């Protein structure tokens, strides 16, 4: 149960709940509850893995009183982005925050525009000119390299400003949120079923993670549990999505150094998985499978057989790829000791996913929480301690073999699962709850609040890339600029997921 506190008590509460990083900050977001007479509210959720739960506090602001509060970033460094986002979206100002530049809304928006307040129309077309100053290092002999938002390759948009001392990157400032589409506002007033196609399209690579977290939250509000068969299929889909993404990354990371045989093999394997996904879901990104209350389609005997076949084939390829990486000394030379994230940094930033686990931080929602059928699969997080590009590559390979095994186990579970029911009917009721699932990039958190008509009052999406992006700017420091693509690819962070 969330404790309600006044803005003055936020520092104490943050200290207590975070317990020096023992309980990572999962999410911090605002909500406009002025209509029910409460005011503006900031929610802070912390993870308590020892009890497999989340707990936290909410800070209530009187809309006619002061909208300032003490920034908790110096206690919980992971809060830095959340506080900036809350300022952009609700106009609640964190005093003492080290960097109060806009995060989400760029120059074409006016200064006092807070889109997630309820008095702003969803399609408000206001224009203005905010200021955004890119941060650079100054000094004799230093120079800047601006990159993006439109990049040279086929990737998503973001602006990077490197402050260089010769070849070495002294500092990187990233201006992101270019693909901000206002999704959290767009779904307000829709029923969860109506909102689903939009939630599914927050990010292409994390379709299953986003829909699963979203549906979990909705199902918790409605107080129902999904049929066992659906739970197994959902877990299976999640692992297929992870395989597609990780295999793609194994083909992508070598592209950062021009290691062509590996790029080619990785590309082949990824295509095989994508085609399998189409056979399963009718869409190469597994869209249309997870629905509130269960899943839309079954995985029958014939399909199970196909999944077995393709996964075995891909597993072979991954093994060969990992041997190729290990054998190639000049490749190892590039990936080892490149882009290091120390374990303490990972904990401070509450990093998730591959990024965290490659730095010795065993942060994995599949073992930290109880959802799907992971508890029956004896899942253990796979970690490495070096925190460099090589470690992130090895974590992916390790996780892939775990996923291949889990897929086999899940298909066995399906074949002995007598149940045929795939979904249950939902009656949307008023309430708020959260859902979590482990995407290929890390844990994906959704907070959903439904109003008395069962329509969405607030959706907050914290994808896995959100806590990991700030870590990228730390990882590059001191490395040379040609290593940036390599380091960037080793994190493989989504832009669409964080921008929303």
């Amino acid at each position, binding site marked *: 149960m969330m404790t309600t506190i006044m803005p003055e008590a936020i520092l104490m509460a943050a200290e207590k709940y975070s317990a020096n990083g023992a309980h990572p900050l999962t999410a911090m977001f605002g909500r406009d509850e002025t209509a029910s007479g409460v005011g503006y509210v900031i929610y802070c959720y912390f993870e308590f893995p020892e009890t497999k739960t989340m707990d936290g506090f909410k800070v209530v602001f009187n809309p006619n009183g002061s909208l300032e509060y003490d920034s908790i970033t110096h206690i919980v460094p992971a809060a830095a982005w959340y506080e900036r986002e809350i300022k952009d979206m609700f106009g609640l100002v964190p005093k003492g925050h080290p960097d109060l530049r806009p995060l989400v809304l760029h120059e074409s928006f006016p200064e006092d525009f807070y889109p997630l307040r309820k008095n702003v129309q969803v399609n408000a077309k206001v224009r203005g000119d905010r200021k955004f100053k890119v941060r650079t290092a100054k000094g004799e002999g230093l120079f800047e390299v601006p990159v993006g938002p439109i990049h040279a390759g086929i990737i998503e948009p973001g602006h990077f400003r490197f402050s260089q001392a010769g070849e070495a990157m002294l500092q990187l400032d990233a201006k992101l949120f270019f693909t901000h589409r206002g999704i959290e506002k767009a779904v307000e007033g829709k029923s969860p079923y109506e909102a689903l196609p939009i939630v599914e*399209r927050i990010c292409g690579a994390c379709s299953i993670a986003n829909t699963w977290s979203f549906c979990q939250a909705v199902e918790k509000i409605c107080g129902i549990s999904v049929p066992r068969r659906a739970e197994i299929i959902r877990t299976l889909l999640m692992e297929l999505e992870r395989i597609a993404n990780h295999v793609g990354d194994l083909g992508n990371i070598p592209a950062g150094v021009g290691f062509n045989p590996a790029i080619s093999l990785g590309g082949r394997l990824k295509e095989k998985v994508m085609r399998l996904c189409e056979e399963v879901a009718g869409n190469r990104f597994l869209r249309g499978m997870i629905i509130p209350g269960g899943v839309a389609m079954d995985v029958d005997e014939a399909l199970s057989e196909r999944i077995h076949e393709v996964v075995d084939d891909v597993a072979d390829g991954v093994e060969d790829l990992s*041997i190729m990486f290990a054998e190639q000394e000049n490749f190892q030379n590039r990936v080892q000791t490149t882009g290091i994230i120390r374990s303490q940094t990972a904990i401070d930033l509450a990093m998730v996913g591959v990024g965290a686990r490659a730095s010795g931080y065993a942060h994995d929602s599949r073992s930290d929480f109880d959802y799907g059928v992971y508890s029956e699969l004896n899942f253990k997080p796979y970690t490495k301690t070096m925190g460099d590009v090589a470690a992130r590559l090895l974590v992916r390979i390790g996780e892939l073999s775990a996923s291949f095994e889990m897929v086999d186990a899940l298909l066995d579970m399906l074949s002995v699962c007598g149940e045929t029911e795939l979904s249950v009917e939902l009656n949307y009721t008023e309430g708020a709850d959260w859902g979590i699932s482990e995407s290929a990039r890390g844990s994906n958190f959704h907070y959903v609040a439904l109003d008395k008509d069962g329509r969405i009052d607030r959706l907050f999406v914290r994808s896995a890339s959100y806590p990991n992006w700030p870590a990228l700017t730390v990882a590059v420091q001191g490395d040379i600029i040609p290593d940036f693509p390599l380091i960037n690819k080793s994190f493989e962070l989504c832009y669409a997921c964080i921008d929303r």
Partner: protein
Amino acid sequence: MFKVLERIFKDKLATEQISLAGSDRYRGPIEGTAEASTLELCSNVCPVKAFAVNGDKYTIDYKKCIFCGRCVEACAQKAITEGQNPGLSHKHIDAMPYLIEAGQEALQDVLKEKLGRSLHVRHLDAGSCNACDFEMGATGNPYYDLARYGVHFVASPRHADLLMVTGVVTRNLEMALKMSYEAMPEPRLVMACGACAAGGETYGDTYAIVGAADQVVPVDLYVPGCPPRPSAMIVALLAAADMLKKRI
């Protein structure tokens, strides 16, 4: 080194003929007929306003369609409760690139005479969910090998004949799209790739969205799909190469 060589010899040539056919569950264009009342239902469940009904006829705006299958689902559900025939269903092929008038005839020759041309493409993500971008990347994998048709992705709009826009144009990227278009040499083409760039309805209208790509720059070619599969993108790119040939 050994493994690299072994794999090169072991792997057979993967490159395939481009085929628009998909697997049995693939949600492609809609076919079939249904009663007026059923169609009305289909139109109501469409999340992107692509399903238009006129009496017992219907049209689907494939620029907007996200191929979620809700119309087919609604139709099937009604059929079960009322004991009718299933009505609408999906074809299991890619929806063909929707071209403007000038492009229609070009498409006919696309697959016949495909070699010996060149097209330089600049990708621009104007606010996509990255599914289109991943599929665009997949066009270069050994199965599709886009480069065999003389189509190349280039690093700058100044080197490009075609701007391939994915995603609904966001406020934060509107300027970047305009500037990239302005930077291209003539003759230039713009392709709106996927339901967001082509139809702009995927997320509805919000404070952060400008709309479909043609709200900002002139568009020559629309590719349906959410996302379009690599095969559909390749057919569209070859059509673009033909269009470009006619403009030079």
